[in-house]
């Protein structure tokens, strides 16, 4: 696997801020709708998204150094990933103490009792305050 690492230089110009990219999912959905929702449309969409990514990637302003990652860190080939089946969620046994329908138990009373917060009358109408002060 090849990793690209930027080399920091003190003379490097500040990079222009990239416009935040729209989420690919949203872009994909829009484009898919435009293409009629066909499979070909989805293919066209992913291509367009990749192309957009390539176009919007900034030109490297700073020198880049290509580093080869150590062999042990190499990721497995994508094709080798096998999705494991999602385990079936078993409902709890009928006599279980824990049940979604079991009412919540009251918390044990603490020795410290919080005093109720006194109600503060709030004016219905916010009117600016007029101030008295020595003449000015």
């Amino acid at each position, binding site marked *: 696997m090849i990793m690209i690492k930027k080399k920091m230089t003190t003379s490097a110009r500040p990079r222009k801020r990239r416009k935040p990219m729209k989420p690919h999912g949203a872009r994909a959905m829009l484009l898919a709708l435009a293409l009629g929702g066909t499979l070909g449309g989805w293919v066209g969409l992913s291509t367009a998204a990749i192309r957009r990514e390539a176009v919007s990637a900034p030109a490297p302003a700073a020198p880049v150094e290509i580093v080869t990652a150590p062999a042990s860190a190499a990721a497995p080939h994508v094709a080798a990933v096998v999705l494991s089946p999602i385990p079936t969620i078993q409902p709890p046994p009928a006599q279980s103490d824990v049940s979604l329908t079991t009412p919540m138990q009251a918390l044990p009373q603490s020795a410290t009792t919080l005093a109720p917060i006194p109600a503060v009358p709030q004016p219905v109408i916010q009117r600016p*305050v007029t101030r008295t002060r020595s003449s000015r």
Partner: protein
Amino acid sequence: MAAFASPLSTHSRTFRAMNCQMTAQVCTDDAGEARTALLAVDRWMQRVERELSRFRPDSDLSRLNAAAGRPYRAGALLWQVTQAALVHAAATDGVFDPTIGRALVEAGYDRSFELITDRRDAPRSAFSLPVATWRDIHFDSERRSITLPEGVQLDLGGIAKGWAADRALDILQPLGPALVDAGGDLVIGDPPPGEDGWPLAVADPLSPENDLVFLTLANAGLATSGTDHRRWRLGGRQHHHLIDPARRQPARTDILAASVIAATATQADVLALTLTVMGSGATDAWMTTHPHIPALLVLNDGRTLQNPAFARHAGAYFPIYA
């Protein structure tokens, strides 16, 4: 204009007058009438400034001060406010006294506050001894003339905003629930529909962007007086605008700001000033004889004090500096 979600829309207008930012609000469905009434409040406040400002040589008050020693036929507005000032001077046993205009000038408050700059090189203020008090002002009701004792100048800064706010509420109330904020002196009318009152707060004088207390009030006045804002340096000394009438100098007080709830903005304005001038010791004694008047104090050392009457109004109280 601003509108809030309410059975009746709330309309508001913010403007500057008397060197303060002011806001008037009214709840009504009639946007046109609301606009007209709010504009009338704006014009009313401008008129009060025009006629009662010490810093406008053509104001009615300046003409009265210039005529000290002889009768001056006052306009209706000056007449009413001066009479109200003397009623409150009597009620506070002279701690509030409008005859402190000269002391303010001698302290350096001789121009609009935003024009006052720290004058370190200026000579120290030389304060005159009191030549007369509020008791020496003479009124002639038939001719509507006021006679100030020679050498006396009136300053109505301690009452004019609150008094003007109360009259402004009279303009808005026929339309619906209303509130007037005259630079921090508030007068509150009926509560908005479905509400207990208007949401209010007392700003923290040590951290004005924060609030000390939140209140909900209706049909009341709420005012704050303090030395936290209108202060300056003159000849190496710190001065502020709250004059102790007994000494005719800026009050030596340990109160940074006092807030008072009263029936009207006029009363709240005068009482807040009175407490600040008295200081916490005299105010403490005063509160025992006036337990029904809600008051909140912030001392220079950051402590906040409130009497039970104020605590009953406060929805939440955060003694940040306790």
